[in-house]
């Protein structure tokens, strides 16, 4: 059996190497000062996909990204490292999306890819740090979800089940889940393999329509006729049959009021065991303090 694997990837500003000019005076991200990179945990997700492909030859990996036209860069990067195909979801009407609109849009794109067995994505993106998109996609597609995954330990083709090790507070947990499902992969998972020389040479000139200058259209058409892999398919809102009310600003109930730099401090932290007595004690305490109830 071969698997159909979908990997979600996001192009993000590289917030890991933040300089003094990383924020604008208005408190938003100064995208010009930060290089755009492949979201790190999405690379961990891609590696899990590639390992499944190593294990089940004939499997295909389709990478889906949503963003500006230049986000086709992450598709090329994924192709360099072993993905089979990629789709860029880009459209002006998709702009300003919060996690809800994003997950709706990506879910629609995944439906268009179709026949998926497993959908992998990073736990969260380093620009928003919400960790909401993966779980929301699972909800919208009606799929099981396993979050914070570190490794897909095994996949049983006939029983259509996977066993996954996931990171939990203070340890790890091994869970079993049915296919198809959504897995969000943690940064502690295996790093992604390097680019492959032949794949770099093969795909370095592959582009999405939006990346090409209009005067190059003819030359590209001729090239793509001979080498179809030179075209990275590009989808707009209509291609994925998206409901205009659920995408972009219209579909985004979130409004950012302000962005502040906050340093978390643990003042009085306690660690409880999972025993019934400890849990009961905590609930009683919270009730007494009128925190819950």
């Amino acid at each position, binding site marked *: 059996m071969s698997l159909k694997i979908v990997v979600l990837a996001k192009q993000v500003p590289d917030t890991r190497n933040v300089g003094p000019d990383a924020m604008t005076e208005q408190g938003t991200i100064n995208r010009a000062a930060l290089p755009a990179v492949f979201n790190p945990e999405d690379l961990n997700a891609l590696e899990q996909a590639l390992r499944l492909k190593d294990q089940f030859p004939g499997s295909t990996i389709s990478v889906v990204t949503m963003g500006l036209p230049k986000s086709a860069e992450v598709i090329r990067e994924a192709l*360099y490292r072993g993905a089979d195909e990629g789709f860029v979801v880009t459209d002006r009407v998709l702009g300003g999306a919060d996690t809800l609109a994003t997950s709706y849009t990506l879910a629609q794109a995944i439906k268009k890819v179709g026949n998926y067995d497993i959908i992998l994505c990073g736990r969260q993106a380093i620009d928003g740090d919400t960790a909401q998109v993966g779980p929301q996609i699972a909800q919208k597609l009606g799929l099981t979800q396993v979050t914070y995954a570190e490794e897909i330990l095994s996949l049983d083709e006939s029983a259509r089940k996977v066993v996954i090790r996931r990171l939990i507070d203070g340890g790890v947990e091994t869970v079993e889940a049915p296919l198809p499902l959504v897995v969000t992969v943690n940064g502690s998972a295996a790093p992604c*393999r*390097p*680019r*492959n*020389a*032949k*794949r*770099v*040479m*093969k795909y*370095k000139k592959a582009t999405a329509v939006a990346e090409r200058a209009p005067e190059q259209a003819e030359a590209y058409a001729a090239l793509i006729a*001979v*080498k179809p*892999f030179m075209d990275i398919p590009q989808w707009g809102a209509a291609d994925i049959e998206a409901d205009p009310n659920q995408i972009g600003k219209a579909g985004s109930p979130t409004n950012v009021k302000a962005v502040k730099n906050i340093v978390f401090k643990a003042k009085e932290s306690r660690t409880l065991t999972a025993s019934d007595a400890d849990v009961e004690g905590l609930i009683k305490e919270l009730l007494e303090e009128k925190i819950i109830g």
Partner: protein
Amino acid sequence: MANFYTDHPEIKFNLESSPLMNRIVELREKGFANEENSDYAPADYADAIDNYNQVCELAGDIVSNVIAPNAEAVDAEGPHCENGRVRYASKTYENLEATVKAGLCGVTMPRRFGGLNFPVTAYTAINEMIAAGDAGFENIWSLQDCIETLYEFGDEDQRSRFIPRICAGETMSMDLTEPDAGSDLQRVMLKATYSEEDKCWYLNGVKRFITNGDSDLHLVLARSEEGTHDARGLSMFIYDKRDGGVNVRRIENKMGIHGSPTCELVYKNAKAELCGRRKFGLIKYVMALMNGARLGIAAQAVGISQASYDEALAYAKDRKQFGKAIINFPAVYDMLSTMKARLDAGRALLYQTARYVDIYKSLEDIERERKLTDEEKADLKLYNRLASACTPLTKGMNAEYSNINSYDSIQVHGGSGYMLEYACQRLYRDARITSIYEGTTQLQTVAALPHITTGTYSQILEELEAAAVAPEFEALKARAKAMDAKYNEAIEHAKAANDNEFLDLCSRHLYELAGNCVMAQLLIRDASVNAELFGTSAKVYMNYAEAEVAKHYNFVMGLSADQMADYRK
């Protein structure tokens, strides 16, 4: 994120900035005829150069982020011999996995066998970077260039069976030396016997000091002609590990390059097949094999020099004594700038040699498909001669430079450099072998001597002298020209005695003279193209080379036949 390739722009310069490169790419791509049939063939010159750069960049990523960080652990653990097999240090497997997944295999092999079809010049760039990351691992990785010999001398059936396996990441070894046949390979005794019944050859005997001796595919030098005792009785064989019959008896406990298993092998009726013609094993095929390997060692030496310089520079900037960083003291910056000058000079010679090799090998390859034109034939002869002159020069000089540079790297570190916590001591131990294996520096001198006496290097110098340089480097050029005159004068003196032993006694000094003169000219040429990258090194190297040339010139000119008894034991 660190990337060894983008962090060292000198490598990119050497890879792409020569006017010969256009011809090299044109020949290698056979006029870009292959483009339509392959997904990853370049469309034109710029596309090919871009391919080399992109692949060097991904190699630079692996070097900086996988191989170099693993080097200390590999050095400490080393390989082990278990039940006749080699188990590499655990991190060596990580390195191998990274290079195989990155497709850095069969780099110079044609695309029809799954190779990248890169010229030797581009392969050299990847090679020196991997060596800078871990010189021991470089041995395992770079033995893939043995496949060149199989490609050149094997038949089409052997090519199609074996080359794709190397392109997919299987490893190689060249099984040449034996307990009684080191530098003197004519003494090889490993016995090859042909079985009429099984229609194949069987190998029996022992090989010693075999790098990566438990590889997947071995090229073996063995005695196929019973009763013979010299080179004419030796043939080359292919041994496939899948057939079995060769076991590892022990792994040598070496001073350096711990990542590389050096094996003693026992052949017991090991099935093998002949590669090329009988009796041509040593006189033709092993010589080709060794020339490729020597260029590889030169690249390894340059890599070690670069790493030694990087370590010393970082330490000298960081370490404070007497209230300031030690890089500000003349005694320290003298060492550092001279290290960099030797590094840049050695690298210029390395790539110049690689380009010569590329042109003659590509012409040879074209000759397998069609007749060469008279002009092409003349070029083949010319570049073959230039390559065979420059290969021993770049191997020996760079090996010696990597020794001096790694020595000075420790010296810059002071007491800390003597401690095992610092990488410079590993580099020093690793560098030591480069002037010994694949022919000692003394044997490189032997190979270079005919080119000294017949004037190959003098011709190279003449050509370099004739080329115009930027006005700011004209003064340096005049000084280099004066050095060349001293070199030619020393040759005449050594030849005038009409005594081969006298000439041999002078040969190491003449060799050093040739090396210094050629490298000085090459560095001036490069500085003239890119003064920012090489201007300083060209000036510093000139001071250094002038002193070296004076030393060796004085030695040769002061030596007379009546002094020879003082040197003889």
